């Protein structure tokens, strides 16, 4: 009987190297002759550069070069747009403005790169940066989203008429008619604010231009080595084959490392070509807050139309979205928000206008959740508010509005980030919700425990928040699978990995097809010399798109194995099985041949081959989904709050997820736990705070608060539900972002529930003890 690998809690192949400090990260690269870069960054969020004096910096011993925009000459050019607006949405307004390697004249956010110093060490480079004198002509700063659109607002881009970056309008059905039919129309305004990804590893690049070989090798902490390679080759006038981009082990990414091209990514390879030396730039933590992207700020004006028994007739949400100083990432974030406003609910009428606004703040691109968190926050808060107003139990109002399990595929018609209609492919929202309710003991808590605790003076609250997550989007990924003569299997992809366990998860998919132990499957990711077709790791698409590409390639190898083995063993293919590294006649173990030996036979050194021959046991294949899959879930929380100190303790936490076919439950659990810790951060600890001059007030880990082991609940209890996706062979969906998505809404609901004896409404996120104090004082 063939052993099962998919669905098993396989321990990770990559762990031993990581645990013993033997894994290569970008800052570990040492090349003889390597020089180090440090940037002079703007102190002002909006200013004209009158002059930059680098002569003192250049003269410092140990400094090899200092470059400003002027020094780049004709090579200076802004970065390419990453994602264009979807062609399928009508009446889209979009003004594309992109970041530059070094600012030429106008600075548009604090931290923009003004000059780069190349020196013997980072220490000397930083000394030289301190010697650079910049004369600024400060300009008025655009920092408030709403004020940015007023007629007399200063302009972030003065070649535009306003700070409008984009506008799009999406409609489903006819909201205005629905509103007329409603018994109740509830309106609210929400303010959501920025969070940062804060991966433990900051960004970094090493670029090595070998003048003799005319070859450029780049190590980059990117989630997308292939586009980086292609874009870099194009910018430098090189052939794609002359550029190799390697994303080695990466210390967490969570979205911002997908953004391309960062100014440093445009500049450092160019410097290497100028100096014919390897150049290393490693971002430090202070830079990271300014120079690496962040997201989440939006202002929503929401309206929900309901019948008096709680059925949603329609939802309207017009919102402003902060895109920062530039918008290379197109409309992905606001589209994600729009596509999650309807959540897992059957909402027949929907209207949403999104206005993206330029501000003098760092660029906005996806951070775990990527706009979905905001959409889910809005609908879940509105349902809580509606439930309170209609005197309906919050679980009842949700259950009555869920899309039923037999209604899939469910077409929400509006366009999503992949430019396709938002079609939810599968799910069972009721079952997932009820499972979470059961796991947390919702009924018993509300009926018995909570009244008892309240009577003793404790403020405890419970919440359940369901959600969907569109995942597994295209366009495609590819993989090459090959059996070597030693019997081990090589899997190669251009896709990057940042801790999600791809080395193991992808190996399991291969093992399932080829019957080889997971430890004997070697996965190579993120090296364009090995594989150069694909996009990158984002939008929770690894298991879906890469997983299915690997599955297809492994299946291709399996076919070749069976065909050849059938000849070698003189047995029909149907009677053969692949087990433990051999091909054998089913249940006749001694009639077999090892995969290694078979692989040798597949690559003859002499003789003639048949037409159509492909050497070895190797197959390359691709997978491109027609549309994204729909993962879903429901989280539950019981928390206690001290209404005097505003301190919160999470007593219980449950997370039920439906990510379709689970390839490795251990890895899925880890993703959920990590996502929840980030979500909790977004709920009560993390907020990237700007002052009105566009300066970040908490640009350090001492003040931007990441949750530690002592803030997490003792146990995040995970539960599974599996509705297989019909869109791919494996039936998988994604789960990388799921843990973070419902948490702010969940936290708000639990907190309101706990503070039942105070009259106030939570219409914002992130919260903080100070903010909660203000809300309670005002009530």
């Amino acid at each position, binding site marked *: 009987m063939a052993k099962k690998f998919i669905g098993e809690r396989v321990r990770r192949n990559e762990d031993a190297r990581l645990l013993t400090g033997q894994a290569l990260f970008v800052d570990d690269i040492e090349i003889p002759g390597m020089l180090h870069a440090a940037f002079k960054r703007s102190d002002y969020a909006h200013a004209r550069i009158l002059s930059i004096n680098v002569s003192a910096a250049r003269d410092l011993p140990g400094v090899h070069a200092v470059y400003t925009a002027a020094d780049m000459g004709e090579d200076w050019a802004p970065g390419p747009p990453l994602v264009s607006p979807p062609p399928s949405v009508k009446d889209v307004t979009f003004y594309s403005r992109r970041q530059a390697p070094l600012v030429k004249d106008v600075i548009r956010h604090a931290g923009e790169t003004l000059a780069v110093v190349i020196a013997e060490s980072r220490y000397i480079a930083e000394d030289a940066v*301190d010697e650079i004198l910049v004369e600024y002509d400060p300009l008025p700063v655009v920092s408030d989203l709403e004020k940015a659109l007023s007629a007399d607002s200063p302009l972030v881009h003065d070649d535009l008429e306003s700070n409008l970056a984009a506008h799009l309008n999406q409609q489903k059905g006819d909201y205005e008619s629905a509103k007329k039919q409603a018994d109740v129309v509830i309106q609210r305004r929400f303010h959501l604010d920025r969070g940062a990804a804060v991966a433990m590893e900051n960004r970094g690049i090493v670029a090595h231009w070998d003048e003799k070989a005319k070859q450029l090798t780049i190590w980059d902490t990117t989630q997308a080595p292939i586009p980086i390679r292609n874009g870099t080759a194009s910018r430098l006038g090189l052939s794609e084959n002359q550029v190799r981009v390697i994303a080695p082990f990466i210390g967490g990414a969570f979205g911002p490392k997908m953004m391309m091209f960062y100014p440093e990514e445009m500049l450092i390879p160019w410097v290497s070509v100028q100096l014919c030396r390897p150049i290393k730039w490693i971002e*430090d933590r202070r830079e990271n807050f300014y120079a690496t992207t962040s997201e989440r700020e939006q202002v929503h004006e929401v309206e929900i139309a309901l019948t008096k028994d709680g059925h949603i007739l329609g939802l309207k949400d017009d919102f402003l979205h902060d895109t920062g100083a530039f918008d290379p990432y197109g409309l992905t974030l606001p589209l994600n928000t729009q596509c999650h406003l309807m959540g897992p609910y059957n909402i027949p009428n929907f209207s949403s206008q999104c206005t993206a606004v330029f501000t003098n703040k760092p660029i906005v691109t996806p951070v775990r959740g990527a706009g979905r968190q905001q959409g889910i926050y809005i609908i879940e808060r509105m349902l809580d508010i509606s439930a309170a107003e209609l005197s309906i139990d919050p679980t009842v109002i949700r259950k009555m509005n869920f899309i039923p399990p037999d209604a899939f595929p469910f077409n929400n018609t509006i366009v999503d980030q992949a430019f396709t209609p938002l079609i939810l492919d599968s799910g069972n929202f009721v079952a997932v919700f009820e499972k979470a309710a059961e796991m947390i003991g919702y009924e018993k808590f509300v009926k018995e425990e909570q009244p008892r605790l309240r009577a003793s003076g404790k403020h405890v609250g419970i919440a359940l928040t369901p959600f969907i997550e569109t995942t597994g989007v295209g366009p495609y990924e590819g993989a090459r699978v090959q059996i070597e003569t030693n019997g081990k299997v090589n899997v190669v992809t251009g896709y990057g990995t940042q801790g999600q366990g791809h080395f193991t998860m992808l190996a399991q998919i291969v093992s399932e097809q080829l019957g080889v132990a997971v430890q004997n499957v070697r996965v190579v990711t993120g090296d364009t010399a090995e594989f150069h077709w694909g996009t990158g790791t984002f939008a929770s698409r690894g298991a879906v798109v890469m997983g299915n590409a690997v599955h297809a390639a492994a299946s291709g190898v399996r076919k070749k194995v069976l065909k050849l083995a059938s000849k070698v063993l003189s047995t029909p293919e149907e009677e053969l099985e692949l087990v433990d590294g051999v091909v054998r006649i089913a249940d006749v173990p001694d009639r077999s041949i090892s995969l290694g030996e078979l692989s040798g036979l597949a690559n003859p050194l002499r003789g003639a081959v048949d037409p159509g021959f492909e050497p070895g046991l190797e197959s390359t294949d691709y997978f491109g989904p027609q549309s994204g899959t729909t993962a879903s879930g429901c989280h539950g929380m019981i928390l206690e709050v001290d209404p005097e100190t505003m301190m919160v303790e999470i007593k219980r936490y449950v997370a039920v997820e439906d990510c379709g076919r689970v390839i490795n439950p251990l890895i899925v659990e880890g993703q959920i736990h990590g996502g929840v810790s980030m979500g909790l951060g977004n709920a009560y600890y993390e907020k990237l705070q700007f002052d009105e001059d566009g300066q970040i*007030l908490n640009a350090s880990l*001492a003040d931007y*608060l990441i949750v530690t082991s002592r803030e997490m609940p003792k146990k995040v209890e995970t539960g599974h539900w599996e509705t297989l996706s019909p869109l791919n062979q494996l039936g998988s969906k994604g789960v990388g972002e799921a843990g973070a998505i419902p948490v702010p809404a969940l936290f708000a609901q639990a907190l309101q529930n706990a503070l039942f004896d105070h009259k106030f409404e939570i219409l914002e996120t992130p919260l903080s*003890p*100070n903010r909660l*104090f203000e809300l309670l004082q005002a009530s």
Partner: protein
Amino acid sequence: MKPPPFEYFAPTSVDEALAHLTKYGYDAKPLAGGQSLIPMMNFRLAQPSVLVDLNNISELAYIRPGESGGVSLGAMIRHKTVGSDSLIVDRFPLVHEAIKNIGTPQIRTRGTFGGSLSHADPSAELVTISVVLNGQFRLLSQQGERWVHANEFFTGSFSSILEPDELLVEIKLPVLPEHSGWSLQEVARRHNDFALMGVAATVELDGDGSCKQARMVFMSAGDRPMESLQAEEILKGQKPSLELFQAVSEKASTSDIDPGGDIHASKEFRVHLAKVLSQRALQEAFNRAREN
């Protein structure tokens, strides 16, 4: 985030260290645990041209019983050592509790008692409790030595009475009298963060259960440890009661402190926390006193 260059000395005796400080004056900074100074240097917020490393001066690290049951601490004694010392655990529970709240485990293996005090951060636990416990500090320079009371030592936010050629070398803490109770209350964003507001309180009971003496000092409540003299006045001679604690905490939080506002907490929130925490601190201190 690399520090700028500096000249470095690693003396092995106090005299050697003092000689460097005298020679370089304001250009020199003593380096103790480095847990506060080195981050500032990495940010280039502090740029001393000379560092005098005190970590090789073994004569500065000790815990010795003092007169009348008190304790004498050498300035370079590490937090972790203090926290696990049996004398401290047995006789100085407030110090033990304060140490537990300092930063993180790694900070406690390197941070020093004297270093924390010299850094004079009004949010620091040891700064606060050294005042509430009536600590005395021995300062040494080539000129000689002087003893300073804890409440005179701290002169402002991150500033102390230390002259540039002077070192804090010893801290003397008396033991709490019999029938005493203590409490340390803190509220922070995360467990290991600096307190948004905190209060350390000690009370001594009379034979009839009324308050003979009380001390209450707030942290993160001003530019130095803020002692609530008014509260201490009100408590004298009074029998403990909820109404008393409420009155005292109201007075203390509105009259005796002057907290600022920042991104983590507004002034109003801090004042509110001061009231809440001082009430809880008094409750706990009196309860402990009764148990003794």
